């Protein structure tokens, strides 16, 4: 049995230890808040009912003759087993249906529409701008705070499920179907999400982050995203860019203005993301180099073959180039 050192996944989540960045109990949006309230109501109710049943059981075992006589009557079964659940369940159901309605009611027009496509094992993201253009991204979603954001959920291969607990409930991404989920983040922050429908292989390593930022910052960021990538500023990065093109990276990965592959994640702003490989690896030049040369060890089964063709300086140049794409 091998109790190996923890591999790198998430080991470097830079927030304080045990911070609830992926918790239904740490709601940061209206829907998640409603559900968290519901959760506590349910937990309290369930604890109360459990308490009543246990008291009844205790009395049946050790109670006095009078209480036992009451419990032993078939009317106790009718009251405890039929009347009581019917009343509580009716109340609960009404509450639940009301919440479902309020969540699914398409009230206001969403301020922003973002396409998210589940892929084995990463997230393809497209921001639909008001002018009809689409900005491609991957694995990290930025949203403006205080705005309704509609996520248009589809799948590119198998069934996945889009779930950011701090913002709301999950919704599946199913081939041949389009599901729509509207969420809102109240405060700026980083909310982790994870694929919630088993999608084979490294399903465990298919996470994402939603970065909520003030609307004006978001607008600036999105505008910058639409522009072509600037020319590499120094020789190393130029060498990296040339390697990127010469080695065929661009056949799968798009860098706006440079390459246009669509098989793998869009890398136009890869350097600006906090993590690599669907919230798996800390995003730095070392991480980039590791994934390029030996991605299969980090995320077994992923579509990208290991590129061991590069010398150490070449790998460094390529990583430097990618890291510069912010």
């Amino acid at each position, binding site marked *: 049995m091998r*109790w190996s*050192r*923890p*591999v790198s996944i*998430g*080991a470097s*989540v830079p*927030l304080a*230890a*045990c*911070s609830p*960045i*992926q918790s*239904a*109990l740490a709601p940061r949006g209206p829907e*998640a808040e*409603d*559900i968290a309230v*519901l*959760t506590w109501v*349910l937990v309290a109710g369930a604890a109360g*009912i*459990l308490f009543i*049943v*246990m008291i*009844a*059981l205790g*009395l*049946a*075992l050790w109670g006095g003759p009078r209480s*036992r006589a009451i419990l*032993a*009557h078939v009317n*106790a*079964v009718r009251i405890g*087993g*039929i009347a*009581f*659940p019917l009343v509580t*369940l009716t109340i*609960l159901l009404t*509450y639940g249906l009301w*919440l479902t309605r309020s969540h699914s009611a398409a009230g206001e027009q969403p301020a922003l529409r973002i396409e998210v496509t589940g892929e084995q094992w990463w997230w393809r993201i497209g921001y639909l701008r008001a002018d009809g253009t689409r900005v491609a991204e991957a694995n990290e979603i930025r949203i403006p705070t205080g705005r309704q954001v509609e996520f248009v959920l589809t799948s590119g*291969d*198998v069934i996945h499920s889009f779930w950011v607990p701090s913002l*709301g*409930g*999950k919704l*599946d991404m*199913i081939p*041949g*179907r389009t*599901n729509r989920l509207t969420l809102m983040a109240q405060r700026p922050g980083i909310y982790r999400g994870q694929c919630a*429908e088993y999608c*084979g*292989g*490294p399903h*465990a390593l298919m996470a994402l982050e939603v970065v909520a930022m003030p609307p004006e910052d978001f607008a600036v960021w999105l505008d910058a995203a639409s522009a072509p990538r600037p020319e590499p500023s120094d020789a190393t990065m130029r060498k990296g860019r040339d390697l990127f093109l010469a080695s065929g990276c661009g056949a799968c990965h798009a860098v706006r203005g440079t390459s246009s592959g669509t098989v793998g994640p869009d890398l136009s702003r890869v350097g600006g993301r906090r993590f690599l490989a669907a919230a798996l690896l800390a995003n730095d030049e070392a991480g980039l180099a590791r994934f390029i040369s030996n991605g299969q060890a980090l995320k*077994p*089964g992923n579509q990208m073959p290991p590129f061991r063709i590069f010398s150490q300086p070449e790998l460094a140049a390529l990583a430097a180039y990618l890291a510069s794409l912010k």
Partner: protein
Amino acid sequence: MTRPDDVALEGASYPNPLPRPEGEFERLARAWELPKGWRIVTAVNNTVIGYFYVATAFLFFLLAGILALLIRLQLAVPGNAFLSQETYNQIFTMHGTVMMFLFAVPAVEAAGVLLLPQMLGARDLPFPRLGAFAFWAYLVGGLVFFSTLFFGVAPSGGWFMYPPLTGARFSPDVGADWWLLGIGFIEISAIAGAIEIIVGVLRTRAPGMTLARMPIFAWTMLVFAGMIVFAFPAVILATILLELERAFDWPFFIAERGGDPLLWQHLFWFFGHPEVYIIFLPAAGMVSMIVPTMAGVPLVGYRLIVIALIAIGFLSFGLWVHHMFTTGIPPLSLGFFSAASMMVAVPSGIQVFAWIATIAAGRLKVTAASLFVLGFLVIFTIGGLTGVMVALVPFDRQVHDTYFIVAHLHYVLFGGMVFPLFAAFYYWVPAFSRRPLSEAWGRWVFALLFAGFNIAFLPMHVTGLIGMPRRVYTYPGGIGWDGLNLVSTAGAFLVAAGVLIFLIDLARNLRPVETGRAGDIWRAGTLEWLPNHNFAARSVPRVTSREPLWEQPGLARDVEAGRYYLPGSATGARETIVTSAIEAEPQYLMRLTGPGWAHVLAAVLTAAFFLLLTVKLVTPAVICGLLAIVAIMAWMWESDPPATKPVDIGGGITLPTYLSGPLSHSWWAMIVLMLVAAALYLSFVFAYLYLWTVGPQHWPPVAPGPTSGGLWASILLLCLSAATLLTACRAMAGAGPAGRGSALMIAVGPLLLGAAVGLDPWSHWQAGLRPEINGHAALVYANALLQTQVTAAVVVMAGFAVARLAVGRLDRRRRVVFDNLALLWGYALAQAALGLVLTHGFPRLVG
């Protein structure tokens, strides 16, 4: 057939006088003698098969439990590399699959096989060889299926096997095929068991044991088997369709070609949710047997419980969609299924309060069995409450597919099924073993299981709520999941320690014996506590209450002395009394088959057929399949013995030894089998209509399809076959030997049906329709396949009937073989006609 006089019994006059004739008991014992030595594998007695069955189910519980420990080891710490990703995925898939299909369902079926005959006052179940066949098929299929893990080719798509992940494109390996063919095959074995249990419970109860006097466990087994009949066909259809898609590229679940991945989910959960109750109900039935005994009073609310059981049976088919709340289903149907999911809490509540009431009515003896029942009450109540929570759609959208659900389902299944099963072991072992299990050790086992279970699974509710999804082989540290996971792992090993102690105790004390059993040490009230042999009780009592042993003092002694019905073997063969379904009045004496090789061979060969097919060894598979049919024919050849003179079973009751038509037990079995077939075909009709709603553009606009000539020819052939069936029925009416005309009609009629069923796909093919092109075309050919399946059975049965006619084993009186053929033939005609209406009429209707 004369009716007994109940009043006569009260005056202490018994059906049969003492002393019993010399040698009567010995003749009875000889008829039921077990094969010796290694020939025990040919045995069919429900006790022997019951032991094998229980032991095998428990073996799979241990194996899947070891997989659970591996899972917990891997998840003990974040980023662990103890198991590789692929190994982990195989292990969690196998853990779920083995626990559900190879442990839970067979375990309760095994309990039914072992306990029901004694409990009902029957000598054995009505189809001993079918029961043995089901067991051997399960054993061989299950062991081969499990061993795929050791070769690294086990399925890894999850026990729920959602396509497209499990389709050929994303799972090209053989693992998914092992699941589809292996599990599909084991489901067939479960259905065989269910048919036997239904007929057994309804038709082989002791005289006087009306439905209202039947032990609750028998009620639960009846509902259990009924649910299997309607639920399992849905998943069998799903596995057939997915295997067809994988093997031949028929796109039932491929969205680009008019299939839909959600079709699988509907079919799977239409089975999968009832499955939970299929597992739970018999366990609840065990609790309903143990509580009255330990409290020393009859069950409070018997009628309410029976109503609750039946209600659960129906309701559980109306809430499958609650497994699909996050698939984007419209809010209206979400509301309906949410309400239905909550409703099912009511019948469960009735049972919980009825048990509490029974405990209050008496004084609970604190035994190991009682402790497990009390533990069950606590854990199951919690599981039920979290079940209500997840029935609320908004809440479910957060916790679906997280560790909260893992916690919930284990509270329901481990709490609701495994705890009662342990209670059942402690409770019923003395009925079969020389010594009971150790009460002192039992307390330790209970303490470890109860503490370990809660330590393992209570924290998982939180783990899920704070964001940990299910089915992940690893997780990152630093987001709050580490500590809880470590605690869960520790709890799992406490459970393992408890199970280990239990195993040692089994080894020390479990000694199943023919004579000298520990017996009724709890002073229970039901018939399985009568002195038992491998033919159950010496004589079959007349039952006048729900707790005969409490109400009829001296019953055990009188039964053993042979004072009641059928104290010996009236015909020299194995026999049991067949009674009416509701009032349990004796109708005839059924002769049962004894040990044999044919059914064992048939089971092994059937298993070989499916397993060889999985590894694509088609020719050997087909050979095994044909040999299996031969073996089944050989086994069935012995059945349906000719009538003898009516026999006296005592108390002035004289019974015929042969009945045909609706009074015959085999007629009932055939009806249940037809219900299974109908459920399978209705699942297909659902699939057809469902795919149409998803992709109507793939349905041919005005159905130019096959030339209507082919269609009319099919209709004509069906009509001819139906006319032949009617003529054959007329020819078989009356008395005397059946003539050549009957043989001719029996031989030709099914072939006409076969021609009709074969012509339909042929004309589609001629019209250029290919199954690969889209979901509609694939369904058209799937229809042809399902029709062929039933028709082939009719043709084989017809050949069998003709052979028996030829040698005089089938005539106008000894006619059960013909009756069964006629029933299935009629069913096949109806299904073929419905198929034509569906695949030809529907496109024209909507086109």
